[in-house]
């Protein structure tokens, strides 16, 4: 698809932006052009100012924050600073990352009306426009629902719908799928894809997880850590020819590209550089001698069966809130050194199950054993010593004012001697790469550091059981990898680990056992590989197959089709 003949829509010339005039600017000397109807993928390491840039593009920054900007932005031949307040927002719309904080009205209908009122749409036309946009994004049935009752995926669709009501020429997507589960993410991307074909807007996509977007991208622009443009070009050029530069900046390659590069050791033909799963499969097939089925990168670490002992068991546990039954007759057992995932769609009862396991909630019926002792017989204090729990948002667990105190807190409670505390804390700081932040306030750390600290606080002794509630939610690939490495180290020390997740690739790579919770019941428990063979269960629980399995299945289909064709051809030859 060639975009060159399209007119430029928005050009940015030597644009710089910063918060503090005394410090180095966040964005330095950016020059780029967005053409009409073009799709741009904007990538860069976390903290490189991508989101700030998107807000500069639609004129909200630097006014909305105490910041400064230099340089020029020209929209359709007119400088952005010459637009009246609110005028440019009709031309350039944004969908943000967090589905929880994009709305100011209670119901879907009123939220959409809010946008129409802002642009002074006559009242008679509103109802029709609202209905039209709702059916375009597939939410016609949710018109009168309160927004807070919707799933994350549908919330993002409402955000998208209300922005589309402005009829923008440029749509900015600021990581709109980062907080969604895989199935919803895929659905949202497909929706954008089809809307883009109907409505001809230009797209500016900021993302960390690139794979599903790639087939629709015309051009990629990458930022580096220092706020400069690192490179720009066609996606196949950027991802296949500039690997070293991207890796150096900590930008993750799409998995499709990684798969190809691994097989070819970096040398790929110019003419055949796959960017979608559909193209990858024939590629693998024609390069059969190089690789065959994709294997797991990291093997789930398996301990010898005879070393395992049961640390926790839950039998026939049910739980309800008021009259509403949340969990029914759940059975679960956990062995030392085991890594178990709990998966399922939003609202299936996963977090409640984790809270029951942790003992924060008590079940209506059923029995629970921890280290062969009934939960009721444990004192709160002792139970917390052998069982840790890491919450989704690490900030919730911070109690003190410094990183050091945070880690020492539990030991002080347990009356450990001062020297021992000092020694243990320093070890943990070292292990979690937090030594240089020893006296920082926990709230001032970066996202990845906060996550590491929240795990470190649970490790004063090596706990027997460690529970994680969506530990990788909203984290980038680097932090996820670090965290999983820490988890594996603990696993080798014999800690049993349970985590709730949406990420099937994590489950595929690391877990030995997976529980699928659906409608308050366990609809599957067993090895991940067995789960991938059960499409009905996956579909019902809104799960998506992991990348590895998807590609391998496509490959298999291809082989089978070939065989069939071969048979037909052989037949034809005979006759």
């Amino acid at each position: 698809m060639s975009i060159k003949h399209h007119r430029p829509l928005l050009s940015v010339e030597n644009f710089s932006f910063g918060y503090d005039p005394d410090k180095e600017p966040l964005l330095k000397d950016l020059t780029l052009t967005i053409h009409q109807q073009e799709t741009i993928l904007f990538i860069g390491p976390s903290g490189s100012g991508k989101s700030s840039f998107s807000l500069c593009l639609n004129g909200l920054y630097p006014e909305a924050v105490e910041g400064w900007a230099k340089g020029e932005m020209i929209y359709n031949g007119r400088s952005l600073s010459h637009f009246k307040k609110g005028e440019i927002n009709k031309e350039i719309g944004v969908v943000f990352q967090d589905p929880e904080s994009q709305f100011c009205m209670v119901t879907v209908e009123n939220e959409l009306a809010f946008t129409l009122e802002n642009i002074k749409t006559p009242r008679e036309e509103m109802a029709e426009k609202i209905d039209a946009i709702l059916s375009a994004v597939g939410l016609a049935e949710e018109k009168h629902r309160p927004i807070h009752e919707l799933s994350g995926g549908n919330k993002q669709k409402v955000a998208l719908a209300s922005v589309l009501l402005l009829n923008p020429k440029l749509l900015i997507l600021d990581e709109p799928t980062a907080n969604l589960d895989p199935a919803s993410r895929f659905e949202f991307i497909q929706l954008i894809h089809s809307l883009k074909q109907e409505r001809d807007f230009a797209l500016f996509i900021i993302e960390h997880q690139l794979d599903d977007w790639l087939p629709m991208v015309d051009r990629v622009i990458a930022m580096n850590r220092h706020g400069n443009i690192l490179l720009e070009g066609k996606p196949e050029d950027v991802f296949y020819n500039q690997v070293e530069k991207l890796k150096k900046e900590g930008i993750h390659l799409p998995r499709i590209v990684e798969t190809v590069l691994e097989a070819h050791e970096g040398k790929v033909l110019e003419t055949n550089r796959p960017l979608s799963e559909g193209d990858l499969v024939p590629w693998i097939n024609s390069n059969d001698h190089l690789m065959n089925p994709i294997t797991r990168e990291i093997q789930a670490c398996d301990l010898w069966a005879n070393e395992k002992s049961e640390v926790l068991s839950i039998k026939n546990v049910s739980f309800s809130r008021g009259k509403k039954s949340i969990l029914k007759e759940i059975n679960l057992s956990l062995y030392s050194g085991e890594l178990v995932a709990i998966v399922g769609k939003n609202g299936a009862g996963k977090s409640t199950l984790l809270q029951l396991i942790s003992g924060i909630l008590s079940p209506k019926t059923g029995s629970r054993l921890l280290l062969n002792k009934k939960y009721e017989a444990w004192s709160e204090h002792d139970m917390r010593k052998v069982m840790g729990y890491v919450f989704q948002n690490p900030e919730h667990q911070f109690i003190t004012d410094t990183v050091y105190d945070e880690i020492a807190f539990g030991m002080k409670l347990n009356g450990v001697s001062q020297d021992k505390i000092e020694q243990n804390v320093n070890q943990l700081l070292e292990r979690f790469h937090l030594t240089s932040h020893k006296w920082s306030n926990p709230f001032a750390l970066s996202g990845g550091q906060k996550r590491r600290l929240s795990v470190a606080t649970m490790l004063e002794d090596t706990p027997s059981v460690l529970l994680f509630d969506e530990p990788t939610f909203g984290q980038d690939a680097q932090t996820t990898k670090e965290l999983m490495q820490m988890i594996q180290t603990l696993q080798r020390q014999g800690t049993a680990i349970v985590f709730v997740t949406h990420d099937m690739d994590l489950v595929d790579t690391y877990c030995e056992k997976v529980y699928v919770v659906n409608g308050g019941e366990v609809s599957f428990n067993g090895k991940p590989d067995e789960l991938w063979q059960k499409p009905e269960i996956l579909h019902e629980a809104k799960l998506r197959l992991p990348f590895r399995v998807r590609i391998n299945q496509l490959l298999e289909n291809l082989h089978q089709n070939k065989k069939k064709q071969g048979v037909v051809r052989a037949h034809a030859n005979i006759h």
Partner: protein
Amino acid sequence: MLTSINPTMKAFAVLIPALLLAFTFDPLTPFIYLVFTVAVTFFFSKVAFKRWILIFSPFLLLAVSFAWMTMLHPSDAFSGGDVLISVWSFQVTTESFWAGISLGLRSLSFAALSLLFILTTDSTKFMLSLMQQCKLPPKLTFGILAGYRFLPTFRYELQVLRQAHRIRGVGRAKGVKERLHQFRRYAIPLLANAIRKAERVALAMESKGFTGETDRTHYHEMTIDKRDWIFVSVFFVMFFVSVFLSYQLGFLNIFGKDF
């Protein structure tokens, strides 16, 4: 139906009589008004009695305790009359008895009036009506509405915080000092999150073309028609009717003065 009355007008219809009632110190006037309010609530809206009484009963308890306090500790103006009962050194006289009953009934009238408003009014429509009828600036209106959406999130987050701290081994706070400390521990993450969210919502609203200008169209056009005026008038007139009735029956007492 009460739900379709213009919310601003309904607020006036409820607020003004409530203010005026505060000056009637006799038991009959608030009693008549209370009966009237409750009757209107059930005849002109679909509020279930069970739900209503559930919310109303705490006020009942409160009113009884108000009344009892007033009976035991009357101001000098109401301590006359014969002694009805005496408890220890306290004496309840006829005058203080009726003053207590009056206070109880007044508080119940306030409660019933507030419930009538709250249970039959959509908060979004109330804010929209304040903007359209009382010229409340849109910035404030939509700001309050956006904040209103956060209340449930706030409660949920506090609950998660409690659980997270329990996991860390922080027990229940004892004593004032510890409680203050605990308050600070909860406040920081809650506030940090609230500020972040508020910022994001503000940006999202501006991205949707919101400027705070008063010149905007309205999806829900809030109008005031004849029905709303009648509704307000009935509530005003009913106040004077109850005053007149108690005057006729010789009960009326306004601000401590008999008529």
